[in-house]
């Protein structure tokens, strides 16, 4: 950070202490940019986006900037909606291998499905700040499985530099099937399916019981867990199912015969391309890892980078996600760009540029329920009424050489500095002659 005047430095100090900022939504327009809407369409040259009251009011070519709205010249720049990073662990850990700092999994807890990540999310977390600098404005945050196939309930967050991160708590429930679920359930897929069905039935029973009535004596779930699964049975809370193998995917799709209201989302689905038509017919969306191409386990022998493209071709709604662990949220554009590159390989199925951007913006937002329908917020797209999450890039956002120059969330301009950027400033030179580096801040 540059040296500031005394007043500005004092203000910067306040910001550094993590006190609530006074920032509020500003009305602004970015003109003359290469504008990518995020809905799958190709970028528009000379485009304009207008944000007012924290919402997008117009975006496209030939859009006029209303009087009184600040116009920012976007010549030579690219403008996109913020990245929607889906299935992340943002805000739940500081350092993965420092267990005290890690709230992702709860393998000693008596509760499972009832677990709720929302109160644990730390908006001042460095990974949130680093991701924000990378153009990520929203994310879904998932708990990791502890000692049950049910990991608990994930949240939707924004990455704004303010104390309010969670926009929707208990946004989805997570269950692991496949190899992971088999291990957790007692050693086999057989056990995992019984555990799943039993849990859903107990949830159905609890939901149907009169207030205060006793449960059956052979109940296996805690009351909290059974109650937490009520919205899953009712179809009001999506059930995210971690599954990779084609056969496992079929088993998941067939769950709807027994529990017709389930609102399923497949997570992983490395072999999804083998059953793409069935997934499409079931209308179940998928959150996949773009570059997963190794038979890393026996449940993903057929993994290929063409998985996303082939599912998309079959009519499946596919988001690029699973941006947790070493696969960080700010890598989403690189993953999307790689799928565009596939188009030049005979036999491979990639995405068009517009589709690739949509796979990390509007589609994950839609899968998360932020699609503007039924009064919900709309995100991941620069369309009238959508949240004012806008990123200005110094080049093609999917290209490795590009980075965000400016980021707005809900129309609020965001700071892009963090622990890393401060280190970078400190060590730009290695001069240690006058005073130690500890005085250089």
């Amino acid at each position, binding site marked *: 950070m540059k040296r500031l005047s005394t007043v500005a430095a004092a203000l910067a100090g306040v910001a550094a202490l993590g006190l609530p900022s006074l920032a509020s939504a500003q009305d602004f327009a970015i003109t003359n940019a290469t504008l990518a809407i995020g809905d799958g369409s190709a970028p528009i040259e000379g485009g304009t986006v207008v944000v007012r009251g924290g919402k997008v009011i117009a975006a496209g070519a030939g859009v006029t900037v209303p009087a009184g709205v600040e116009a920012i010249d976007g010549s030579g720049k690219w403008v996109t909606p913020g990245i929607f990073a889906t299935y992340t662990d943002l805000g739940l850990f*500081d*350092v*993965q*291998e*420092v267990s005290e700092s890690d709230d992702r999994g709860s393998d000693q807890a008596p509760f499972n499905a009832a677990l709720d990540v929302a109160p644990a999310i730390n908006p001042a977390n*460095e*990974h949130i700040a*680093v991701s924000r600098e990378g153009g990520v404005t929203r994310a879904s945050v998932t708990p990791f499985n502890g000692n049950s196939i049910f990991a608990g309930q994930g949240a939707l967050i924004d990455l704004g530099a303010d104390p309010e991160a969670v926009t929707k708590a208990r946004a989805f429930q997570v269950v692991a099937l496949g190899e992971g679920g088999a291990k957790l359930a007692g050693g086999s897929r057989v056990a995992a399916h019984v555990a799943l069905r039993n849990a859903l039935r107990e949830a159905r029973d609890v939901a149907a019981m009169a207030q205060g009535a006793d449960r059956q004596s052979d109940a296996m779930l805690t009351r909290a867990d059974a109650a937490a699964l009520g919205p899953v049975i009712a179809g009001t809370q999506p059930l995210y199912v971690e599954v990779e193998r*084609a056969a496992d995917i079929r088993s998941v799709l067939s769950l709807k015969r027994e529990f017709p209201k389930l609102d399923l989302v497949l997570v992983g689905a490395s*072999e999804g391309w*083998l059953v793409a038509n069935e997934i499409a017919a079931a209308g179940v969306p998928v959150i996949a890892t773009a*570059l997963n*191409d*190794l*038979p*890393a*386990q*026996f449940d993903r*022998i*057929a*993994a*290929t*980078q*063409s998985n996303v493209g082939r599912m998309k071709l079959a009519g499946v709604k596919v988001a690029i996600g699973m941006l947790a*662990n*070493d696969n*960080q949220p700010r890598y989403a554009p*690189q993953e999307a*760009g*790689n799928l*565009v*590159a*596939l188009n*030049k*390989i*005979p*036999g*491979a199925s990639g995405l068009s540029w517009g589709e690739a951007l949509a796979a990390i913006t509007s589609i994950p937002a839609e899968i998360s329920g932020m699609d503007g329908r039924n009064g919900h917020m709309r995100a991941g797209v620069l369309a009238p009424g959508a949240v004012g999450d806008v990123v200005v890039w110094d080049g093609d956002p*999917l*290209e*490795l*050489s*590009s*980075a965000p120059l400016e980021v707005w969330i809900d129309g609020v301009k965001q700071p892009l500095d963090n*622990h*890393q*950027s401060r*280190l*970078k400033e400190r*060590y*730009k030179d*290695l001069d240690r002659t006058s005073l130690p*580096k500890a005085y250089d801040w």
Partner: protein
Amino acid sequence: MKVPPALRQWTGALALGLALALPSGDALARKKDKDKEAVAETPYPSTYKPYPGRPTALVGATVYDGRGGRIDNGTLLFENGKLVAVGGSDLAVPDGYTRIDAAGKFVTPGVIDAHSHLGDYPSPSVDALADGNEATSPTTPEVWAEHSVWPQDPGFTRALTNGGVTSLMVLPGSANLMGGRSVTLKNVPSLTVQGMKFPGAPYSLKMACGENPKRVYGSKGQKPSTRMGNFAVDRQTWLDAKKYAKDEERDRDLANETLVGVLDGDILVQNHCYRADEMALVIDMAKEMGYKVAAFHHAVEAYKIGDLLKQNDICAAVWADWYGFKMEAYDAIPENAALLQKQGVCVIIHSDSANGIQRLNQEAAKAQADGRRIGIDIPDAEVVSWFTYNPAKAMGVADRTGSLETGKMADVVLWNGNPLSVYTRPEKVWIDGALMYDALDPKRRPVSDFELGQPGEGDVK
């Protein structure tokens, strides 16, 4: 080097004088020879032979030679596994050469990963195949990574087809302070590891400092459980090796043979070490014991001591932007590589990952861009050396591969665009002049035994 006659006489006399004056000199020399033999001895020798190729001319491409050179509209000639000529459009294509029009495309040396666990931690990643860490003793210089390599690991083929990787160093893991010997491989499908071994490549000793060894052994209630424990065990082990080296009555000891090989300079040291302060301590330990570190791997804090690394001629093998996964990676910054390049340090982009090895070019491009944003403008041609020549240098094979220079191995990647763009893929990859991958020919796509007859066999990956 030409030595003036007078000086040659003098050095000759000195050598003779030494041999005569010191009664034990002969014995010492013999013992030294014995050490060399033990190191040079190759009980599992390379049986690698280049596959057949044809005389090939790549014409019209932008050529990055791996050492900072760039030729626009270049011509590359190779024959009999060797690079015959690298030049401009004026370079004539001899008769009998297959001419490939590479206009609009790019040519680089084969990509080289200085830090891989392919084969030792293969796919599928099941316990039965997890052979990368002999985590039973804090020092295991006696183990050799080549004895764990599963040549059928499908990861090798992905590194070839998506990453353009032609050579790689497989290291034992970092559970131990001294993890064992590395092996350098040519990335060709083979039934045996000997069939992949890079002929004549030196061995390296994998060492690790910091969190891993102290965690693995501390959790077993044994030494080392602290960083000071790490150093104590290392130093004592080196001292014991020095004693072993002097012992004329010694029996063969595999651990000490490796360590003596390091002290003699025949085995290189690849040291997993994240933090600046620890790298500085390791440099001092190397001086104390009389060896040299070739490269610090995972050197996420190298940017804090670029001057020290430059001064000691140690390469820094780094990721572009891995961050915060362990405490010693909390100060990782994406400008690391660029800041090191600015200090004149030999920079390597390494993977340590079966996924990352498929995109070393992309990782380098990101690191280049992060440098540009703080005013460090590194030309593309120099960035290419981060994943070609520099790793070859740290592995001790830069005289044979890693750059496009006449007489070197014809390890070549033809990219369908700028290799520093996300939209680019390898189109063809040659190893010793043999076409081992061709994106345009499904039959030039290796399928490992493991994948045969299973879903996805022979698919694009």
